[in-house]
Every structure is written in C-alpha cells, then in structure tokens.
C-alpha cells in the first residue's frame, strides 16, 4: 500500500504541487511510523528528503488534530546551527503557506520586533536551536506557549548527541514533558555506529523505532597518492577539477583551506568556505555554488551538516579524513539524487596519511562508522539545568529534579550526582538549599542568561610582536593553554614565532628563524584518529596486504617500498603487535599504533613516572602512531622500556589523576567548568587572581569530578590504553628497542604538553642545577701563583689543571673574590691577608681531592672552603648533593645576610 493513501488530501495536493512523482525509500519507510505516533530515529544520508520524511507526517497530524489555533508552538524543529535554521525555514514556509500554518524562526540573530511578535502570537511551527530553547524557558509569557508542544524534530542529532550541548538539550526535553506532557520525538541523523544508543539519547526511557537507510551502500571512494610537495598536491586537485562537475574539496584545517584557496582561486570558478569567514561571505559562497557560478568549493567541517547547496557530483578529501564518520558524512554530500552513487576521492601524501586513508576507506565501505557516545552524568550540564529549573519554578523539590533528570538518557544515575551538584551550586550562591527543596537566588537569572549554552566561550589572546611592536594576530585559549609555554615556537600567519612572555591575556613573541621538527600550528582543529583506525593501520603494516585496500598499483607499490626501506635501514616496523622504542638526540620515540587518545594516556603516564623517578620535566609530543618524549640525556630508551614493561593496567587512571592536576590542560578545563557551575562569571576577569592558587581552591568536589570525567572521556582513553598494557604483559604485544627509523621520525608532532616534576622541590633543584652550571668561576693556581682563568662551572674539566705549571692545586673563586688572589700572592702580608691565603690554599686542596664537584659546591652562594668540605664529606651525589648545597645556602641567608 502506498503511503499516499493514508495522507490528508491537502498534504497530497501539496506533494503533487511539489512535483514529487513518488516517495523515496526513506520517506516510504518513515512516514507511516510517524503517523503511527512512534518516537522515530531516522538515519539516512543528507539530502535524501529526510526533513520531508519527518515533516510531511507531522503536518498531516497537525491537520487532523486541528492544530494551528495560534495558542502556542505545536511543533519545535531544533537544529544545531543557525545557518541550518535559515535553510529549514525557507523549505517550511512553502508547506506552511499552503497548509495554513504559521512558521517562525528564533535564534541568536532574530530581531527584537520579531521576538515580540512571537511572544504575542506564537507560530505553530518554530525552528530554533538548543540554546534558544533554553532562553524560551526564561521568558514568563513565552514559556506558556511551550505547553502546546506535540512534536519535536531533532535535526542532525548525531552532531549533538556526543556533546554537552546535546546532554543539555536532552534534559531540556524532559523539562518540556513536565510542562507540555508527552510529545512525539523524531530524530534525523547521519550514519552512526550505535543507532540504539543515539535513539535512547533522544527518547530517554521511552520506546522507539529506528529506520535506517545506510549511506554506505551508495558510496564509491578511491585513494590517490600524491607527492609531499604542496605544488604536487595542488596540481592533482587541479587535474580533478578539469573534469568539470560540481565538486566539494574538504580539508581538515582552515589554514589548508586558505593556502589551497590562494593557489586555486586564480584559476577562477572556485571559492573558500570555512568557520573563520564572516557569515555573509559564507552565505555568498553557498549561493554562488548553488547557482552554478562556481564549480568547486574548498571547505572545512563547516560544510558537513546538511546546508542545502544544490547538486554536488564529486567530493575530494584533501589528506586523511581521520575518522570514518567524517569521510562518510563528507562523501555523502555528493550525488544526492535517489539511487545515485556518491563519488569521493581522498588525496593522500606520505605513508601515515596513505595507510590511514586506506583503512578509513575500507571501513567506510563496510559501514564500520564510529559510535557517537552521549555525555553521561556531566556535572556542569546537570548544574546548569538545576539552576534553570530553580529559576523556572522559583523553588522546586529535590526529588522532582531527580525525577526530571532520570527521564533523560544522559543522567542514568541522577540520584547519586544531584546532591553533590546542589551543594556546589549553593556554595557559589546560584541556589539556596532549604531542606528537601532548592530555591532560586538573585544571582541565578543573571548566571542563566550568561550560560544558556554549554559551548565553552573561547577567549582570544592577541599575539604581540616585540620586534615590530604590533599585534600580528590572535590565538584561541585552548591552543594557548595546551601548546604554548615561554620559549615555545609556533606557526601563525605563515610565520614562525617564539613565545617570550605570556602575561595579562597577551602573548608576546619575537620572530623565530629556525625550529626543530614539525610545529603546532594554531589553526589545526585537532581531529583525533580513533583507536580502531590506528590499530588497523598497525595490522596493515604487519600483513602488508595493501592489495586488499586498494587496486591502484602506484599506491600499493609505494606502501610496500616504504616498509621495505625501513627494514633495509635496519629499522623495525612497528605494527599492531610490536611497539618499538627509538633513541634520538631529543629523547625517545615510542611507536605505538593506538590513536591520539590512547597515546595521550601512554605519553602522560610514562612521563609522570619518569618525572617522578628522575625529577625532571618531560616534554611530550604525539600523534596517532607515535609518542616523542623529550628527555634529559640520562634517561634512555632502556629506562623507558623498563617503565612500560612495569605498567599495571589497573593503575593508569590513578596515576593520571594525581598528575593531571598540575597540567595547564586541567587548570583550563577546571576554570571552564567552574564557570558553568557559577563559581566564576562568564565574563570575569579571573586573571586578577594568581591562577596557580585559584586552581587549588577550585578543587571542590563536584567541579573537580566533572573536570576528570571530561578529560577521561574526551581527551584520554584509559580503557583502550589498559587493554594495550594488558597485551604487553601477556606478551601478545612485543616491546623492542630499535634504531631510529623513518617511521619514528615522520609524522606531525602536533600535540604538546609538559609533565612537571611532582614536587616543588624538584623545580627548585632544576633551577639550582641550571644556575650553578652557568655560574662564573675563577680558577687560580695556588702552586705557581701565576695562572688564573675565568670560566663557568659547566666548562670546568673533571680534574682542573694549571695551564702554566700543570699542578692540580687550583682554587675555585667566585668572581667577586678575584682580588683575593692578588692579596694572597703579596710578598709581605698582614694578618688579614695571611688568613685569605690560608683559605685559598684550603680551597685549592678541596678542589685537588674532589675535582669539578668541589668547584660546583664552591660556586654556591655563601659557601666557603669550610662549608664546602663539610658538604663534600657527606659523600652525596646527584640530587642529594644539590639538596646539601641548598641547605647551606639557606643557612647562609638565614644567619649572615641581614647583618648590617
């Protein structure tokens, strides 16, 4: 039976008007389910008529239930983006005009007069964003209109489900149930690896139906290899564009979009589209593409969501797409007509990029898309919604809060977290606790209007060039806190810069001439490579069955030759069951195919353990296939191997928890989350406080717990890291030390952080070591009395010798003691001068017996021969020796320094 027969004749008339001959597969399957009143998750490629699949039956039901009386919003259509809202509005206006419904859009850009109109006479269909839904609850009259809601459509739900925005929206829907009673939920999604979980995210505790039309049946993707040089890559793209059909070129970073644009725009018929461009520029590019004025558009993830840009025939992905879902989503933009195949080409360069692209392509065709895991039990989201409910109701029993939250899938255990969150909120005066109820406060409304969104506000830091004395650009807060430190070199605006100072929200830099290795570039929107993809790249390196992944002889030959070359140079190829360690001048490279988030855990845990044992700061840089540890010379590959071999799978998280507190990433997250808990205003000038102390004080239970939860779910994959550690222990994965190889040296080391030593003591020791090494000393011969040189402790030989008489009786003097050498060598000396001579000879005797170590000790503040011989008599070495020196300096300062 055709779907058409069950539709209201007015709808059928519209469909005829629209020129639809027949329904698409998606529509055939989805429309009856919606008419049956089921909660429906509809999974299908963009542009296959998903929106109509949801809206045709919804209009049908609106007609039959006599909606449209203007009493309130009957249907909410929620999308993640304002630009999508615009698109949907245009499409819905056509239907609503014919069916006699009113439609409106409401989001951040909506004018005041339009808003007022909506408050007075609400449209039947409201197109909006999750954040604006939050705002609607705040308006006393406006929220009355929500009482009429019968249908909620959640568009591009895969984009929201994994985020805090999504979690907030999920709870908002439960708040809506309290207001409007149960309503029908329809979610529209791209392909995901876990449809059931996403459906539960949408419906909470209610039953649901899933209709899925796999996109992967309709895609064809090839991987092409190009040279490392940018010109070669541009040439290949140009070659593809010559074929003529409308093409989207996806790139991973805005920087790449810009530089490709620079090369290709002059050819004509091409434009650039990315998030940093202004809205008008983007809309114009979309319109020009839609009209056919241009035949290609270079874009970033800004184009992934279903903005209607007309017909696309071919999608080029520049470099590995990093995730299967991203590839599917992007290629899915091509060939939208029903039954047509979406054609995509990945242009890869270099071995990592190629292997990763091959693996992702194979997984895409097999339909192995990543899961979208909702954000469960997020403390700050729950805090935000508790505050919202307290404002909405003035006062509300705690039990009611728990009931509302428990209806949503994102709070599976609301009862355990709510009391802690309520306590925290009341400490910051957002709510008042009154026995079994919470009551709103004067601050709550202001807090709420500043925190409608769960998207953290990113501050911009200006980059100030000391040399040219002008501001050369700006950096995002997340980049600053995760990658930059004094002395770091980074790329911005195509130039290299060295950080001189980071103070008062400003980065002072100077141009840097050279830099070692690849550098973090601020534009890099870091897309982590998933564990499964990186593991399969490891498998592919082991089996070398490249022919299973590609039929292109150029690709197969290149990949095989690359691995052979590694072995010809005596390197060991790291695979899914071999981890190799390579010693290089900067430190040690660990080759581990486990993806960014798992490597992050490894890198950090190992650095923490090294830092604890050797008391030094360890720098980490990593990508999906390797971790570079920047180490002092005394820590070698064997030590790192020993540490990895000694890891316990169950200990990783605990080790990280202790050490993370000292990292800049943790402090930054903590402040962001403290803002969402109302401890710090969104616009607060928190730099008034000394940040190193603020973070200690903010270590309050709920804020801290959420910080850890977020770090472990978004940045660090402890579960997979533990699996790897377990495999190392039972020898399913081998751990070997190999010579430096091409594999270890390649790749983009883009992820930087430092693990500081565990105690302040270690930082102090590092400082004194550095200071004494650079301390100036005068070496003076007490035998011939005719030779002295000025040098620094670092350069003193182990056993100093007089350059004149070859004697080893050398006194080590501080620069300001130089004149004493002259006094001691006078022919006739007074009592004081004789004493000086005695001290110098004692000094020289100490150097004679202890060599450079004595010079080091004598270079310390206020340490004379007597103190020096006492320190040397302790026979201490390394850190203990420096501790003895510190003790002596401290004693000197305590007793002598202040005598006037």
């Amino acid at each position: 039976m055709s779907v058409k027969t069950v539709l209201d004749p007015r709808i059928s008339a519209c469909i005829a008007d629209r020129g639809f001959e027949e329904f698409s597969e998606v529509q055939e399957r989805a429309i009856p389910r919606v008419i049956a009143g089921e909660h429906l998750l509809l999974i299908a490629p963009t542009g296959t008529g998903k929106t109509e699949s949801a809206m045709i039956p919804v209009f049908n039901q609106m007609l039959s239930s006599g909606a449209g009386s203007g009493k309130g919003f009957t249907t909410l259509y929620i999308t993640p983006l304002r630009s999508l809202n615009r698109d949907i509005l245009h499409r819905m206006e056509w239907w609503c005009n014919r069916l006699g419904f009113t439609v409106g859009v409401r989001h951040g850009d909506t004018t005041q007069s339009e808003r007022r109109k909506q408050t007075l006479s609400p449209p039947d269909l409201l197109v909006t964003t999750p954040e604006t839904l939050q705002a609607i609850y705040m308006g006393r009259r406006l929220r009355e209109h929500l009482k009429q809601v019968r249908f909620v459509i959640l568009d591009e739900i895969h984009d929201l489900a994994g985020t805090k925005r999504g979690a907030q929206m999920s709870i908002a829907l439960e708040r809506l149930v309290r207001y409007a009673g149960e309503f029908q939920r329809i979610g529209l999604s791209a392909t995901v690896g876990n449809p059931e979980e996403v459906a539960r995210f949408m419906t909470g505790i209610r039953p649901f139906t899933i209709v899925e039309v796999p996109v992967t049946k309709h895609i064809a993707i090839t991987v092409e290899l190009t040279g490392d040089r940018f010109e070669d890559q541009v040439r290949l793209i140009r070659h593809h564009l010559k074929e003529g059909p409308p093409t989207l070129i996806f790139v991973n970073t805005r920087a790449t979009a810009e530089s490709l644009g620079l090369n290709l725009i002059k050819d004509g018929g091409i434009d650039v589209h990315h998030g940093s461009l202004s809205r008008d520029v983007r809309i114009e590019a979309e319109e020009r593409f839609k009209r056919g004025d241009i035949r290609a558009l270079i874009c970033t993830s800004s184009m992934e969501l279903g903005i209607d840009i007309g017909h696309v025939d071919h999608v080029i992905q520049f470099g590995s797409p990093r995730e299967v879902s991203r590839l599917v989503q992007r290629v899915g933009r091509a060939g939208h007509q029903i039954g047509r195949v979406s054609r995509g080409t990945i242009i890869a360069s270099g071995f990592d990029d190629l292997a990763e692209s091959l693996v992702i392509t194979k997984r895409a065709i097999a339909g192995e898309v990543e899961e979208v895991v909702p954000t469960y039990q997020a403390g700050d989201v729950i805090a935000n919604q508790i505050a919202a409910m307290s404002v909405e109701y003035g006062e509300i029993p705690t039990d009611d809060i728990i009931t509302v939250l428990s209806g949503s899938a994102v709070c599976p255990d609301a009862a355990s977290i709510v009391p802690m969150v309520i306590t925290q909120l009341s400490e910051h005066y957002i709510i008042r606790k009154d026995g079994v109820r919470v009551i709103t406060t004067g601050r709550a409304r202001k807090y709420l209007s500043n925190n409608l969104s769960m998207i953290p506000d990113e501050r911009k830091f200006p980059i100030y060039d000391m040399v040219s004395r002008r501001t050369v650009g700006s950096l995002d807060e997340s980049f600053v806190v995760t990658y930059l430190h004094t002395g770091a070199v980074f790329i911005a605006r195509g130039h290299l810069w060295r950080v001189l100072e980071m103070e008062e929200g400003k980065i002072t830099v100077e141009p840097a001439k050279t830099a070692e290795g690849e550098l973090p570039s601020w534009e890099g929107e870091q897309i982590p490579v998933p564990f499964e993809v990186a593991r399969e790249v490891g498998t592919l390196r082991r089996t070398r069955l490249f022919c299973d992944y590609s039929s292109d002889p150029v690709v197969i030959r290149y990949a095989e030759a690359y691995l052979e070359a590694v072995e010809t140079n005596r390197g060991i190829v790291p695979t899914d069951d071999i981890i190799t360690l390579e010693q290089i001048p900067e430190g040690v490279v660990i080759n581990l195919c486990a993806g960014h988030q798992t490597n992050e855990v490894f890198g950090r845990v190992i650095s923490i353990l090294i830092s604890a044992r050797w008391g030094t700061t360890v720098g980490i840089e990593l990508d999906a296939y390797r971790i570079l540890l920047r180490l002092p010379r005394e820590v070698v590959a064997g030590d790192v191997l020993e540490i990895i071999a000694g890891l316990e799978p169950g200990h990783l998280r605990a080790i990280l928890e202790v050490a993370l507190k000292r990292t800049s990433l943790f402090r930054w997250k903590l402040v962001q989350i403290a803002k969402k808990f109302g401890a710090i205003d969104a616009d607060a000038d928190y730099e008034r406080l000394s940040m190193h102390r603020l973070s200690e004080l903010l270590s309050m239970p709920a804020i801290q717990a959420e910080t850890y939860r977020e770090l472990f779910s978004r940045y660090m994959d402890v579960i997979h890291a533990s699996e790897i550690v377990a495999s190392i222990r039972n020898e399913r994965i081998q751990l070997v030390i190999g010579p430096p190889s091409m594999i270890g040296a390649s790749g983009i080391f883009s992820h930087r952080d430092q693990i500081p030593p565990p105690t302040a003591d270690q930082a102090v020791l590092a400082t004194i070591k550095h200071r004494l090494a650079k301390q100036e000393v005068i070496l003076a011969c007490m035998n011939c009395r005719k030779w002295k040189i000025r040098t620094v402790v670092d350069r003193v030989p182990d056993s100093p010798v007089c350059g004149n008489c070859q004697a080893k009786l050398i006194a080590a003097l501080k620069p300001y003691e130089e004149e004493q050498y002259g006094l001691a060598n006078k022919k006739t000396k007074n009592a004081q001068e004789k004493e000086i001579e005695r001290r110098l000879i004692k000094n020289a005797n100490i150097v004679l017996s202890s060599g450079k170590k004595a010079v080091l000790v004598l270079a310390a503040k206020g340490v004379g021969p007597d103190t020096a011989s006492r320190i040397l008599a302790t026979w201490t070495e390394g850190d203990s020796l420096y501790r003895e020196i510190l003790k002596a300096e401290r004693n000197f300062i305590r007793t002598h320094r202040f005598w006037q």
Partner: protein
Amino acid sequence: MEIEYFAAGPALMVTGEQRILVVADIHMGIESDLRIHGVHLQSRGAERTSRLLELVKDSTPDIILMLGDVKHRVPGTSWQEFRELPSLFSELRQHTTIRVTPGNHDPGIEEFLKPEELLPKEGSLLDNLGVLHGHTRPDPSLAGHLILAGHHHPVVSLADEVGIALRSPCYVLAELRSEIFDTPETDETTRLLMVPAFNEFSGYGIEKTFRSPFSPLSRAVVIETAECLLADGTYGGDLSSLIRYERQDCT
C-alpha cells in the same frame, strides 16, 4: 639579627632584641570584592585566621607585625570585614602584641585596633628595622636600615629546560637607590626585603613588577644586585636572571 622563614604563611620571624613575626597583605574580606569581579566563593576568612594563629602559637613571637592591607575594601568596610576582623585581632591579642603598618586597603582599620597597635603609614623603625606597607615613599628615618615591606605580592616563576614548572610566592632582597629619600640621613646602604602576600589569592609576577615598576619602592630597587628567595628561604637566584625575557638556550 637572624631571620627564619615559614613557608606555610608565608611569614618570617626576625630575631633581634625582640622576636617579630612578620606577615603582609592578608586582605581579609577579599571574597566580597572577588564577587564584584565575577568570582563567587565562600569566605575563607576563618581559614586565614587559623593559619595565622597556628603560626603565632608555634613560634610564640613578642610581636606580630602586619605589613598592611589587613583588610580589603576601599573605601569603607564590607560586612564580611565587620564579621571577620574583630575575631582575628582579638584572637591574636590573646597570644602576642599586634603592630600594623596601614596600607592602601586599610582606611577604616583604626576602628578595629587600639591606637598603640597602629604604626605610621609612611614607615617607622621597629627594633632597628624599617617597616611600612610600601605604597608610599618611605620616611627618611628609614634610610640605612633594612626595610620590610608588603604591597607587591611577589611571585616567581622558576623555569627549567622544558617550560615553567613552578610558580611560588617569594621574597625580593634588594638595595635601594638613595634618591627615594628626600633627605637621606645616612650614607649607609638601604636594603629592602619585599614580603610575599599572606592571602592565598594574591600574587603578582616579579617580572611584571620590575619591568614596569608601579610603586616608589619598586622603582628604587637596584635590579643588578637584587636577589630572590623562595617562601622557605631557599635562595632562588638573581632577580635579573629571573625576570629576563628569554629562556636560556641549553646547548
């Protein structure tokens, strides 16, 4: 004269004829001001009071010297200060003698103190030490002495080869140029010991203080010979090397 450092304050004990426990910049009532600036925290005044009392009980000084900015609100006195200051002072009085050099945040502090507990704000000599808060030019009688001052909240960043590893409250010990006194009464060198803030929220990088000095005292510091001490009295290095722009390249 001997000086002992208590990192837990930070505070220091100067032993001459008398034993004087010195703290600076307690800023009681800071939370109510932070609230105005968008940081909403419960008052930690009780914790601050007990931290100071512990120090006093453990070290049994003859005098507790507070180098100014005991309170925070200017002008006027906040409710938080009315709640917290009387108990701070009365508890201290049970164990020792109070002396306060009033700071720029202290207008109104007289209400809480006995007249003899208040020292002149431009500075005075106490057991041969010059003492003042440090926002004004010091009295000429302080020339030639060791001066203790607060006001600057010094914090130092200790960097190692990879990056900044530690930020810690610190003391700055420096020679003062004699121009700071209108009529220097002595040729003896005047030295300054900048005392770190007792308040746990306060801290201001010494690199900023000395690159763009904001007070008469910081402008008069001879940077070349100045030194930095950590909160426990550890020698932290020369001031000039700690406030340098560029990290030394370790080759």
